[in-house]
């Protein structure tokens, strides 16, 4: 399925396995239910990612994170925002691998997804066909700054920009 990151379309190196039998798939994306089993079968050269439903309790996922290269979070509908909070929790624990949003998102959510810690969006074919990549890149840059601190690139938020402006301003002569 079509995949994009902050620069545009991207090749998908991951192969979704049906079950825990990951054989010698170099980059194996496995369903949440069989993750433990798949990790037991992991070969030294192999990297493993997991596809999780968006209602997996973070505490159950956390112990696996050090051994994962990708966490793909399913979005059953674009209006279901649980994935955003889950991504935040994963990043907070220091996970440095790829976080992917998988499902029928819309372009207007691209900036939100990136600032919550996602790297990639994997879209169903029909959604990708309706919303070509340039729309995503345009929507991503719709706002020059946001109001929330701690989301996305620091310096892109209004509060830190105001703080920087105050620091740079000459002291009032009153």
């Amino acid at each position, binding site marked *: 399925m079509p995949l994009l990151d902050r620069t545009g379309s991207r090749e998908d190196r991951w192969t979704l396995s049906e079950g825990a039998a990951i054989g010698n798939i170099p980059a194996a994306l496995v369903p949440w239910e069989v993750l433990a089993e798949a990790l037991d079968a992991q070969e030294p050269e192999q990297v493993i990612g997991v596809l999780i439903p968006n209602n997996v309790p*973070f505490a159950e996922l956390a112990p696996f994170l050090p051994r994962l290269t990708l966490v793909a979070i399913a979005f059953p509908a674009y209006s*279901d*925002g649980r994935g955003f909070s889950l991504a935040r929790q994963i990043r907070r624990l220091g996970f440095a691998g790829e976080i992917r949003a998988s499902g029928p998102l819309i372009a207007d959510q691209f900036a939100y997804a990136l600032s*919550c810690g996602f790297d990639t969006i994997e879209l169903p074919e029909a959604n990708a066909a309706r919303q070509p990549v340039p*729309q995503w890149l*345009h929507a991503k840059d719709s*706002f020059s700054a946001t109001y929330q601190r701690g989301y996305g690139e620091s310096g892109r938020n*209004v509060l830190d*920009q105001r*703080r920087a402006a105050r620091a740079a301003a000459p002291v009032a002569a009153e």
Partner: protein
Amino acid sequence: MYRYDEFDERFVRERVAQFTDQVARRLDGSLTEDEFKPLRLKNGVYLQLHAYMLRIAVPYGTLNSQQLRQLALIGERYDRGYGHFTTRQNLQFNWPKLRDVPAILGLLADVEMHCIQTSGNCIRNVTADHFAGVAQDEIEDPRPTAELIRQWSSAHPEFSYLPRKFKIAVTGAEADRAVIKAHDIGLRLRRHPETHETCYEISVGGGLGRTPMIGKVVRDYLPKKDLLAYLEAIMRVYNLEGRRDNKYKARVKILVHEIGAEEFTRRVEAEFAQLDGPSINADPEEVARIAAYFAPPRYEVLPAVSNTLEAAKAANPAFARWVEVNTVPHKAPGYTALTISLKPIGQAPGDATSEQMRRVADLAERYSFDELRVTHAQNLVLPHVRQRDLYAIWQQLGEAGLATANVGLVTDIISCPGLDYCALATARSIPIAQAIQSRFADEARQREIGPLGIKISGCINACGHHHVGHIGILGLEKRGIESYQITLGGDATENAAIGEILGPGLAAEEVPDAIERIVSVYLAARSEGESFIDNVRRIGLAPFKAAFQETARAAA
């Protein structure tokens, strides 16, 4: 009041451009109708019964005269010459054309206004005490907090696709005029008993609608500096744990109810403990920057009581009654906060014509430091009026049909638009409000009855706050006929309570009689100086139920 800086200005302009682009992508098929709908709602565009409705945010109810004049202009140019003030301190236009919306958003941006998040499953327009900054019982002005939350919640990357809508209200006073216990989050500024610092008491899980609930306190004293991180913790728990299987069970009140306030609090505190507060919270300089905009205006030094006012009152009893009913004490000597009733007898509650808006804007500019407020009771307030100017203001309001002396009385009815406008409504509300107003039109009788809040909703969603009305009226549809259920004993203040149903539903024409009987029971049973709600609490529901049964029997 708050003024946009370059960042706020750019944000609102970028939002208008974004919405314009979203409309274009809907039209070229990039977005399906299902995909577009939540985007449209988050920009205040609502599909109503007869037409589109545009809901404009009035953050924490504060406006200046230029903004109100712009609303008057929009009402004239793009609507039918009036607007409707709502219980969320918003303004709604009922008849704009969809194609005009981008132009209207542009006109709003010109005066630092917007429609951002006035609908949709996101954090809605933040409301606050309409006497913020002026009330004598206030510990601290709640508006800097509300403005901080307005900014923080605007286009929030994580909390823009919540299970359901989310409403936050803030008060800084002893008396609750912001109905905080009926909000998803209610914040109350209060002083810590030992440190004497102002902190936030935080309630979660209040709400009306089909499952009315009173919010539960999850923190007694949150240090002010921790506000945004604590809100983030609450929102994250709700976003992850709130039910999404059933939209009627998706509000945070259901989550709090199902897992219990204690467990909900535990989860929030556990999440909060994981957060890096300093990287999330606004720094003190930013908080101070916002607060500075809400510094009191330069009041004149005046005697506490104006002789001019006293003389005018003595000479004109009608004026004296209006002053007594529509003004409240003010922090500054010689000043008062004046409520302009948008409930003249027989009008739709909360409606104002463009001409009336301009008149009020002129008065605000001339007599109230260019400031006014929208109240959740669908009235307007001039917050800083010199007592000696009241007579002149009264005369000018009278010319505009705005001098009704009924604030807080039986004809000051809160009412949703009901079946006359709303796609969700199952019964009419406005004609019921008008019929009750006509029944109790006599001013002397209204004053004799004293404070009495009637609130009417035209459907179970309770936009008219009927659950917290001293007398609540809920319009329903039964077998094709409008039926009205009466509740008693609700309270929207710091003593928040949900009213109880009195008996079977009534036909529309029976409602004024039923109210009459309820009021008669109170008048017969009240002790000296006892208000309606105090009387209901003291004597209980039984006598009212008995009288109500008579109405129902007479009608049968």
